[in-house]
């Protein structure tokens, strides 16, 4: 396992992530302008979606639907067990507990992408259609979290239906989910012949683009590190232990639903990851009373760096144990 972790830590992607963290901590004036961030995000989502779609076309929907359904269910269930933990274990307010729970049920596309890269780097085969799980796991947890938050708070004279509708719209039609699902469909329509045409842009340089993007993510996460003291020790532990548990759950469910070792690892990674773009946007609109410092810091400054560096090789190790 030490080997697996070291291989990950010395990959360009993770080292550039560390460089971004250092830039933020040393207050270097390095920053990525927003259009560059958007461009890199669009590229990564379209590339991973397209590749996943081609893989679905190859594998056939028959192989994909069961683990995809399981992934969705897992996403919806994670908030149900993390909410009471946050509420009673962490003594957080109901709305904050619901908000954080939603983030940990939802997923981080970049963590997923980094994991596929890691598996490729160490020559561990995996089911490319796992991107489908990424696509279906983003929304359910957000909806569950918003419902939890609304039930728990019920502000005087407020119609919680409207908030849930807002969250649903954000969760289903937000740009990241749209790009991912759309590219997945495009990829599945094109198949291998379409892939041949765009491979040189969407596949060959992919790892390098990811490394550059993780430099920016290091900057973004690093700027949040200053808030660590505001979230307290409970959330710090939560942000590391809960992903480990969810990761193991995901791997196990992957095995149950017939995935190979690689695919199960990826389902573990998804389950362990916490959203830091789609969920914050939806929660901000639907549960405005929840404190963004809490959910953003835990998902972006604790769980994201943990998964990128140590988490991914650990989930693989768990899968190896389970499959051996």
């Amino acid at each position, binding site marked *: 396992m030490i080997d697996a972790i070291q291989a990950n830590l010395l990959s360009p992607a993770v080292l550039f992530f560390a460089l971004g963290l250092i830039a933020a901590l040393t207050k270097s004036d390095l920053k990525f302008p927003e259009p560059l*961030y958007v461009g890199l995000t669009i590229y990564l989502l379209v590339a991973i979606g397209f590749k996943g779609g081609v893989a679905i076309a190859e594998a056939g929907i028959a192989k994909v639907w069961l683990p995809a359904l399981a992934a969705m269910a897992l996403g919806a269930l994670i908030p149900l067990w993390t909410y009471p933990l946050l509420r009673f274990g962490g003594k957080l307010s109901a709305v904050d507990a619901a908000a954080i729970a939603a983030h940990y049920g939802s997923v981080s596309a970049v963590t997923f992408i980094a994991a596929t890269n890691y598996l490729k780097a160490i020559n561990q085969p995996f089911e490319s259609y796992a991107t489908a799980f990424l696509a279906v796991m983003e929304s359910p947890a957000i909806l569950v979290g918003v419902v939890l938050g609304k039930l728990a708070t019920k502000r005087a004279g407020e119609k919680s239906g409207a908030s849930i509708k807002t969250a649903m719209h954000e969760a289903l039609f937000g740009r990241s989910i749209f790009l991912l699902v759309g590219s997945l469909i495009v990829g599945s329509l094109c198949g291998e012949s379409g892939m041949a045409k765009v491979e040189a842009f969407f596949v060959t340089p992919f790892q390098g683009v990811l490394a550059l993007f993780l430099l920016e993510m290091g900057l973004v996460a690093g700027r949040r590190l200053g808030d660590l003291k505001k979230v307290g020790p409970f959330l710090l532990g939560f942000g590391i232990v809960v992903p480990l548990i969810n990761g193991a759950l995901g791997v196990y469910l992957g095995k149950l639903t017939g995935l190979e070792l690689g695919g199960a690892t990826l389902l573990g990674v998804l389950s362990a990851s916490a959203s830091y773009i789609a969920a914050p946007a939806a929660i901000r609109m639907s549960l405005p009373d929840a404190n963004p410092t809490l959910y953003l810091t835990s998902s972006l400054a604790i769980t994201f760096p943990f998964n990128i560096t140590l988490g991914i090789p650990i989930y693989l190790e768990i899968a190896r144990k389970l499959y051996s």
Partner: protein
Amino acid sequence: MNTHPMKLVTVICEALARDHLTRLLAAVGAHGYTLFAVEGEGSQGRRPGDIAEFSNIQVEVVVQPAIAELLLTRLQAEFFPRFAMIAYASDIQVLRPGKF
């Protein structure tokens, strides 16, 4: 030259409020608006402006005084409690009063 007094209402708020805000502008009867991305710092921390979802927008709208009042009232009631934002009004002079 014949200029006419009008009100400019400026709103600086988190970018996520964009759709809510443009809908409010239409609702109170503004005939147009102008919008751009900004960075900022305020009581709810720093907004560095590299990720659209976490950053700010500035919205400027030219309206008649009565509409400015209505707009500010509704901003105070519906937006101030929910969003990181500031809003202010100022006096301007325009040429085509019928346009606003």
